[in-house]
Structure formats: structure tokens, C-alpha cells
């Protein structure tokens, strides 16, 4: 959650530039790879029953801890091997993505929605409303976040709903902050003032005139937060306080496999890699997106590209000489 740059007016490209945008993405190989990987993970999760070679819960007592197919003793029946109960790891990784992505999406929606509401309110109304809301934000930032989460879960009992609620409560503040600062910037603009003079209702102004300005920064923030939630969900599930068996998630699979890591590393390695690859891919794409939607950053990227080209040309000339 590094500092998020906040940008002003509408920066979304007009519709006609879609292809141009894709071409621009293609220039950034890492971001392209990221996007492709994210799409693969999302599609595999959605169509898990079609994609997964086995039932992720089906135990095979004879085939326990079979290694991946390329190792001695492995077979193509279980491409990534089996876990300590003889369940197919590839299928579990595919299904595990469902829980992880679903929880992350739900948390981002709930926390983002709530945070945006309060941020809008604080920024638009200002004054007392603003100071009360921001005081709550400040106070919650100072709470011992994870310890409180542990306390709640140990009292209420773990589960997917608990997890979503707890993570949303712990993560809405950043949206409120970002939204508030954007709103504060936009509020001063002439067209808002014009709308106010024309007698538009505050609700109409907020949703019709201010909200569009938030889409681009909120998108970037939500995507970054999404990766944080995936990691948080995995950590809590790993600690035994998140998703509970027989449901599955990547973090839970690492937890239930961790005792076997020294006799069957693949039980732990693949779910862990799934988390890492998903988060990394999203970050790569989000990074590109952030730069693309920010005119200042775009300029810098352009300048850097020019400078690099000049340098390469100079170097080529030198080595030719």
C-alpha cells in the first residue's frame, strides 16, 4: 500500500483509442504477460468444473503424495501430483482460486463501496462531517489491525463470511482517504460550482459530476488492494482462521500441506506459487494501468522511451565506430 498518487480530471481515454491502448500494452511485455496470466487464472476459476481434471475433494488413498508427472513415480493422471489425502493438486489449485478471488473481490467491493461513500461524503460536505469521518479513519488506522482480526475470528469462529466482513472493516479507510482528496480537488472546479449555482441537488452533483472523476484512481487502487486482500486471505487461511475445510483456498492448502513439505514439497509449492503468480501478474498489469491513466506518468514514460532510444542509438554508433 505505497503512496497512491491522486490525479484530477477525467483521464479515461475516449472509446476510439481502444486499439491504440492495446498496442500500447503490447509494448510493455511484462504487463501483457500479467494481463494474460490474470485472465487465465480468472477463467480457470470461473470454469473450474470444466477445466479441472479431477474432483478437488476426491481422495485416493492409494495415490497419496504422488509427485508431479516429471518426477520419478509421478504420472500424467495427476499432473502436479497429489496431496496427503491423495487429492489432485492441479484441480485443487484451480478450485482454490475460486475462493481466493471471490473473497478478494467481495472485500474490495464492500470495503471500496463503503470507503467511497464516506470519502465522497467527507470531501463534499466538508466541515464537521469531514472531520468526524476522517477522525474515524485515523483512529482505525491506529488500531492493532491483525490482532483485532485474530480476536474477532477466535470469538466468532472462522468462515468465509466472517473473513469478508473482517477484512472489509479493516481495509475501507484507504478508499475514503483517496476519494476524499480527489473530491476536494474536483470540488473547486468551475463546472461543479456552475452546477451548484444552477441548483443541482447535492446527490446529483456527487454521483453525476464527481463520481466519474473517481473511476480511474479507484480502479487502480482497487486492483492494488485486490492483491493485498489475496495475500491477507491466504495468510489468515494459513493460520487456520480463514477459509475452513472442506472448502478450499490456496492459503488453506499451504497450511494443510505444510507438515508434509519435507517429504512432498509439491503439496506446498504449487498453491503458494499460484498465489505468487496471481498477485505478481495483477501488480504488473496494475502498474502499467496506473502509468497509462496518469498523464504525468505517461509523459515520463514517453520521455524515458525517447532517452533510451537515443542512448541505444548512440551506443550503436559508438560500437560501430
Amino acid at each position: 500500500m505505497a503512496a497512491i498518487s491522486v490525479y484530477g480530471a477525467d483521464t479515461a481515454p475516449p472509446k476510439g483509442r481502444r486499439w491504440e491502448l492495446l498496442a500500447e500494452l503490447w509494448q510493455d511485455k511484462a504487463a501483457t504477460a500479467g494481463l494474460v496470466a490474470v485472465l487465465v487464472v480468472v477463467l480457470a476459476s470461473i470454469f473450474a468444473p470444466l477445466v479441472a481434471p479431477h474432483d478437488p475433494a476426491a481422495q485416493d488413498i492409494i495415490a497419496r503424495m504422488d509427485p508431479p508427472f516429471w518426477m520419478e513415480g509421478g504420472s500424467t493422471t495427476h499432473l502436479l501430483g497429489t496431496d496427503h489425502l491423495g487429492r489432485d493438486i492441479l484441480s485443487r489449485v484451480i478450485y482454490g482460486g475460486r475462493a481466493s478471488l471471490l473473497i478478494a473481490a467481495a472485500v474490495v467491493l464492500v470495503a471500496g463501496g463503503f470507503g467511497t461513500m464516506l470519502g465522497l461524503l467527507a470531501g463534499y460536505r466538508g466541515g464537521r462531517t469531514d472531520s468526524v469521518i476522517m477522525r474515524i479513519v485515523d483512529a482505525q488506522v491506529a488500531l492493532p489491525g491483525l490482532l483485532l482480526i485474530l480476536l474477532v475470528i477466535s470469538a466468532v469462529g472462522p468462515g468465509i463470511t466472517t473473513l469478508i466482513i473482517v477484512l472489509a472493516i479493516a481495509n475501507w479507510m484507504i478508499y475514503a482517504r483517496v476519494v476524499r482528496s480527489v473530491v476536494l480537488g474536483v470540488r473547486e472546479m468551475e463546472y461543479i460550482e456552475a452546477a451548484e449555482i444552477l441548483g443541482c441537488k447535492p446527490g446529483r452533483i456527487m454521483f453525476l459530476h464527481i463520481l466519474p472523476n473517481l473511476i480511474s484512481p479507484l480502479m487502480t487502487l482497487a486492483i492494488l488492494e485486490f492483491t493485498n486482500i489475496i495475500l491477507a486471505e491466504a495468510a489468515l487461511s494459513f493460520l487456520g482462521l480463514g477459509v475452513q475445510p472442506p472448502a478450499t483456498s490456496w492459503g488453506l492448502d499451504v497450511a494443510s500441506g505444510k507438515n508434509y513439505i519435507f517429504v512432498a514439497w509439491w503439496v506446498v509449492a504449487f498453491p503458494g506459487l499460484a498465489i505468487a503468480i496471481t498477485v505478481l501478474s495483477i501488480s504488473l498489469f496494475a502498474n502499467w494501468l496506473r502509468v497509462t491513466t496518469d498523464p504525468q506518468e505517461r509523459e515520463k514514460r514517453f520521455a524515458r522511451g525517447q532517452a533510451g532510444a537515443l542512448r541505444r542509438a548512440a551506443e550503436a554508433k559508438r560500437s560501430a565506430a
Partner: protein
Amino acid sequence: MTKFLLHRLWQGFIVVIVVTTVVFVITRLVGNPVDMALPLSATDAQRAEFARQTGLDRPIFEQFVTFVGEAVSLQFGDSLWQRRPAMAIFWEVLPNTLILLLAGIGGAIVASLFLGIFAAVRPGGLLDRAVTTVALVGLSLPQFWVGLMLIMFFAVIMKVLPTSGMGGPAYLVMPALTLALPSLARLTMLVRSSMIDELNKQYVKTARVKGMSQSSILFRHALRNILVPFLTLCGWELTYGLAGFTVVVESVFAWPGLGYTAMQAIQRNDPFLLQAIVICISFIIVIFNIGLDVLFKLIDPRIKIG
């Protein structure tokens, strides 16, 4: 300054009140400490007796008053698990977490300065790309997974480091490294990007033209200007670690710190120890944050906080 300090103290006080209330509501109203604490085979008479001994049979408001009194005087009664004052356990494990935080986050802070600055000298260069890639990967790897992989490689295969627990300095290496990784990545990225911005400013160009040496530009001038955002993030990393985010690393390496003890308290059904840890840690975080704000105010009086 006095007004500012009073204001911050008042805010801190509110936070403390909120935490105490939240902890009370969660442990007494949502959960049932009697069931949590007693063994499977306890009889109903034993349950009633336990409730009587711990005051859990009193009216809820009376319990709340007692609870606030306990929190204010930092007397939380005995841990059910170890049958000694929960505070004694807290003070015993707190230094272990601080050691881990200092080694991990402290190491990350120092290393990030060097990595970030060297990467910023030639943006897009080999070192920059290497640092950026490693940082991105570092932020993407789940900590518990990194820890397990480190144990497998360094302890079991190479046999150069102990697997887990606390002992000599060798025991600190892997937990600190695992804890440091995401912080190192975040800090390095911050140093790098603010340094790049800084180095593009006019005064740096002027200094170069005047023949000032590279190291003098980097460490004397540019570094001073990025100090405030850097220290802010450093403070945030430490707070974050204190707020229980060492729990994963401590669990993986059985490092007997606060997070590990909190997990033990959950597993051993010791709600009294857990609530003592949560409340005391929030006290510490509040004090630490006030200290940080004061520090920033001293560094740069223009900063507006709160």
C-alpha cells in the same frame, strides 16, 4: 506544540477507549470464555464454578466496569494457560517481537536506502530493472510460503541454519529475512521513485554543472529531501509489524514473540491472555504513533498532522 501534543494525546485516548470496548464486546458478548477455557470433559458444576471465580457470572455492565479498570491499571488477571499474570507473559515476549522487528524492518530500512538510491541513479538500467523486479516479486510472495521454502532450503537441505525457535543469532536470520522481504520491497520502491523525481529537479542539474560529486549529490542533498516520506513509511512499517503482522512469520518459525503467543492463546483457549496482548499492543501503538508525529513535527514544522 503543547496544543498539538494535547490534541494527539486526546486522540490516542479515544483510540484506547475504542479498543477496550471492542475487545470487551468481542470476548464477552460474541464469544463465551467459559466454554473456550475449560477442557472437554468439564462438568456443568465446574463450568459454573469457573464462571464464579473469573467473575463471568456477574451482570454484563459490572463486568465491563471491572474490565475497564483492569485495562487502565494494566492488570489483566492470570493467563488460563500458564496460570500466571497475563502481563508477565506479555512483558516476557514483547522483547522477542521487538528484536525480530528491529532486525527485519531495521535491516530492510538500511538496505532499501542503498538499493533504492543505486537503482535511481540510472532508471531503466540493469541494476534498476533487477531491483524493481525483485521488489515486485518480493511483494507478491506470501510470507508464510517464503518462510517454509527458506526452512526447507537452508535448514533441511543445506543444514546451515536452525529450523525454528529462538536461540543464538543464527536463529534470527531466516525469520528476519522473511519479515523484511515485503517491507524491503515497499521501501526500496519508495526510495527509488522519490529519488528519481528528486534527481530530475533543476537544483541537481545545477549542482552537476557546478561539478559537485555524485555521492555528495545523492547522499547530502537528494537524500535529505526524500527523508520525510521515507521516514513516514518506515514508521508505518514498524507500526504494521507491531500491530500483529509479525504473527505469520512468528508462527512459521515458532519465534516466541507476541504474534506467536497470541496464536498460542487462541489455540489453548486462553481469552484472557489474548485480550491482554491486544489491548497492551494498542497502547504501545498509540504511544509510538504520537512519538512519531512529534518527531516529524520537530524535523519539519510545516507538516500538518491529524
